[in-house]
């Protein structure tokens, strides 16, 4: 396996001129943490279904489909499993 640099971080800053400010966005440690968390927790393949609905090339609706099907006792606390069925609302006169 070839050795490659893991992460190259470069901050580009601009001198104060017409309103631009010379400063670091983040320090190096924060920057590495941001990339680590953003990559691993916000990106990558998700086996659940993600759908973006659009019209005429304009994205309008993001829908994340996440269905979990399992026996209730694997997921719900015991108290909730005994919850009575919802009573139907009576029609108002």
């Amino acid at each position, binding site marked *: 396996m070839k050795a490659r640099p893991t*992460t190259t971080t470069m*901050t580009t800053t601009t001198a104060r001129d017409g309103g631009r400010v010379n400063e670091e966005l983040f320090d190096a440690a924060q920057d590495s943490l941001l990339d680590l968390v953003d990559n691993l927790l916000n*990106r990558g*393949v998700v086996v659940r279904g993600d759908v973006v609905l659009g019209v005429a090339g*304009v994205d309008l609706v993001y829908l994340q489909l996440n269905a979990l099907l399992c026996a209730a006792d694997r997921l719900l606390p015991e108290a909730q499993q005994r919850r009575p069925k919802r009573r139907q609302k009576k029609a108002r006169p």
Partner: protein
Amino acid sequence: MILVVGIVEHGVGVAHDVAHGAVGAGADAVRSVVVGAGVAALVVDVASAPSLDLDALKVHDRRVRAVHEAAPALLPVRYVEVHDDDAALVAALRPRLPALAASLQRVRGKEQMTLRVAGAAAAPSDVVVDAARPGTAFLARKQAQQRAAAVPALDPLRAALSSIVVEERVEAAAPPLLASVFHLIPRGRADAYLDVVRAHVDTVAVRVKVSGPFPCWAFT
């Protein structure tokens, strides 16, 4: 229980390395699960769902990078993706084989650079509204908003990077950031990419922080 690391092309490059234990070892050993149609998933056997803490993230990041080095094409899988066993994973992935194969083709021989951008948000351009066509007007306004969200202030830098960047994805970010911009580039071009950014940083009216190269997290 298995922890999914990434999706690769079956029978190419990393499959050989994985079979011969060249990717990870011991508890960190990665193995291949054939999904079908030239696609395989790389997994690690775990006793329980991995923890969600910084150390675990770093371990997983190293694991994904090791696979990225060994595979010409890798789609990293979001952390934490666990399944009961190989059969459950294959069943979940099989319906998506065509899309996964297309994504693998897109990221083959590529890696990712990331720009974190801060500065003033661009105002959406004015849209001529036709009162008789409110639906068209709505779409036009949405389109203008999306163009503004793409950080047009980066256009001079984009032009300079056009010979390197294969694909771009932009995501609005919470303050103090304005946006995160992800660039897909050929592997081995990271130094050239950084040289271009350094040379053109004064041409853009926003602050930019560059990091990478990474596996293609944003292009799955």
